[in-house]
């Protein structure tokens, strides 16, 4: 080896050794979780002013014009300069966003003063556990919390400490979306099926009428909160254990899986993909589906006739129920302008314009009773909303913890695929789900 090369190799080795020694130093651990200091509930509110960095998940920026909401807000408070910051790739990269907030918190910084887009069963559990976001209980007046629908209020409380970390804004509620014309042709009636037995019977008629051209029923069967949970909720009021884990011991769990096996033959082949059934509905190849209300808008945007896309309450089992989730707003611990963030939440996001843009305009439910009353009184309440709102107080939400998406959902996906695609028995599927979830949750805790 030449002399110069020897020197180069030697220098590289020295650098690598130095780096290895340096990197062996323990990483500066983030500050342990502790209750952030919140202003006293009785303290006089500070007038909001200054710059407000509003981080919004990219997909929501595409759905409504946030600039209009900001303009309407500034008419009430011109002293706050709102900067809208798009956060791309959030659905696939929520863990990246959590890491970003974590790393910034180590330097006592935050890129956003408020983060709009987290859903309680996704990011907030992890962020709350790490102490990276502020609880909102005492930062927002009690009267505002009293105005939130009961189920949503339960949803936004982190199971770890019972505090609220998410200001709710857009709720998605499961219902039955259907094509009246297809039902009329197949069954003789435009009326949708109202319970699971009727759905099974309708599927048979759809198949007889349309063959393989139109499928009877659609759902994301390998997503826990888009299939098993909402169905199971119509058979039991004990959807979750005290730990916030799916109650696999309840007889309704077995009944639900058995029902899903009966429903599967009527599902379109694309139902294995996320929103695969929705795509089938949007292309006119599906008669009924269980999804949240925004899928009605997607079908209309996909050029399905608006008059022929309807939404009704979720099918019944032994009880009426549904499943929902609510995206909202969080305040990072090191946000620079928390007063403006709170002000914008209360005056900007709940402004009548924002409510109209959200609900009639974008098919997203704003889960505040006063907002719903205003929509009703002004005649702008969409027809699909009342059946869904009726269940928002009584339906069981998905708990806000850090293991629903990281433990329960992946395990459910694997086991339900084995049950549906490789004929694993219902009993073994339930047993595996229960054991694996218990082990996974214990590791997380």
């Amino acid at each position, binding site marked *: 080896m030449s002399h110069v090369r020897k020197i180069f190799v030697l220098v590289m080795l020295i*650098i690598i050794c130095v*780096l290895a020694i340096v*990197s062996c130093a323990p990483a500066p651990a983030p500050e*342990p979780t502790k209750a952030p200091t919140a202003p006293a509930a009785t303290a006089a509110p500070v007038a909001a002013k200054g710059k407000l960095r509003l981080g919004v998940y990219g997909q929501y920026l595409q759905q409504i014009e946030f600039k209009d909401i900001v303009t309407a807000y500034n008419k009430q408070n011109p002293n706050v300069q709102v900067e809208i910051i798009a956060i791309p790739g959030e659905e696939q990269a929520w863990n990246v966003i959590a890491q970003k907030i974590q790393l910034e918190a180590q330097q006592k910084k935050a890129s956003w003063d408020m983060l709009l887009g987290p859903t309680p069963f996704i990011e907030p559990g992890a962020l709350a556990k*790490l102490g990276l976001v502020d609880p909102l209980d005492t930062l927002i007046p009690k009267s505002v919390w009293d105005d939130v629908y009961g189920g949503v209020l339960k949803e936004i409380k982190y199971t770890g400490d019972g505090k609220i970390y998410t200001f709710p804004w857009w709720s998605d509620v499961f219902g039955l979306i259907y094509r009246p014309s297809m039902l009329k042709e197949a069954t003789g009636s435009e009326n949708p099926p109202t319970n699971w037995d009727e759905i099974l019977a309708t599927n048979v008629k759809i198949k007889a009428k349309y063959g393989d051209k139109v499928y009877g029923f659609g759902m994301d069967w390998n997503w826990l909160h888009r299939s098993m949970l909402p169905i199971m909720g119509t058979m039991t009021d004990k959807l979750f254990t005290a730990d916030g884990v799916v109650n696999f011991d309840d007889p309704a769990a077995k009944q639900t899986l058995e029902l899903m096996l009966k429903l599967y033959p009527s599902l379109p082949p*694309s139902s294995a*993909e996320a929103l695969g059934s929705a795509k089938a509905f949007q292309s006119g190849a599906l008669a009924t589906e269980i999804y949240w209300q925004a899928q009605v808008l997607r079908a209309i945007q996909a050029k399905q006739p608006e008059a022929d896309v309807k939404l009704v309450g979720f099918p019944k089992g032994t009880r009426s129920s549904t499943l929902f989730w609510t995206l909202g707003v969080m305040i990072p611990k090191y946000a620079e302008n928390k007063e403006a963030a709170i002000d914008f939440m209360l005056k900007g996001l709940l402004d009548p314009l924002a409510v109209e843009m959200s609900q009639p305009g974008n098919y997203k439910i704003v889960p505040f009773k006063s907002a719903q009353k205003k929509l009703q009184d002004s005649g702008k309440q969409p027809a699909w909303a009342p059946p869904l709102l009726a269940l928002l107080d009584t339906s069981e939400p998905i708990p806000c913890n850090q293991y629903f998406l990281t433990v329960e959902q992946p395990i459910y996906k694997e086991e339900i695929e084995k049950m549906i695609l490789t004929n694993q028995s219902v009993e073994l599927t339930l047993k595996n789900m229960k054991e694996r979830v218990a082990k*996974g949750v214990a590791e997380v805790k």
Partner: protein
Amino acid sequence: MAVQTTSAPIRKPRHLLQSIWRGRVGYLFLAPLLFFYITFVIYPSARTIWMMFMRYEFLRPDRIEFVGLANIIEWAQDPRVWETFGVALRFTLMYVPGSTVIALLVAILLDRVRHPGVASVFRTLYYFPVVLPAGMLYIAWQWIFDPTWGPLNHLFINILHIPMPWTRWLGDPNTSLLALVIMSIWRLMGATMILFLVGLSNIPQELNEAAHIDGANEWQLLRHVTLPLLAPIFLVIMVLRLQVLGLIAEPLFMTEGGPVRSTMTYGLQAYYITFRDGNWRMGYGATWFVMLSIFSTLVAFLGWRWFRSRID
């Protein structure tokens, strides 16, 4: 009369520092690249190796501690290691020969095209998928593989009237991995083709002519002249394609490792351990990645030794 030179004899440097000083300009030019290499390759690699010996869970920063070889022992006993490595190996064994053979055929055909303009057009067409954004391709291929509206099923069933034993592609555990292989071959074949074209352009034309004169047909020409002279290219391709053992992006975006874990590759499982499951066990996930790196390096080294012996 002896020719006399006037240049001074070159003296070898006697001292290390003197040697560095003499090459100072070269080192200065190297410095920026070295900085980036150290910052974005050496340091993260060293850090990953360090994490391998730590209990490091992102959602439990209060539990960071040195655990020695515990992660490695757990890795060695984890049944998912062998299961997912098997998936990655099956993918590799389908993808590497498939893409290599197709790329070689296309390169040989392109090499025979006389008109440079025509050759250029086809080269561009075949290389085009390589430069397209990967995310866009994943979405496009999800539609291509769609069991109801996808053009692939439409082509076979409605146009060619070929009875298909399977139609669900990405939604069928028997065909999901094959679907990813097909997409990957289509996507990256152009890059392999370019390597073969470079190799083919380095084969002296006289050898082909001499073989023709000796009566060799096309197959004999390929087997006894072209392929042996392309051996270095095969070596490069083998080393480059070893990276598919750590495949993550395709199964992550198209199948999430399903259905029934049929596309849960080693790399994807490691990714989920690190960034999705439980408390995000970055220490344990680092173990998975480091072990894969060691294995890949070993395979690359052995393959290089074997190819080199054949080339020599």
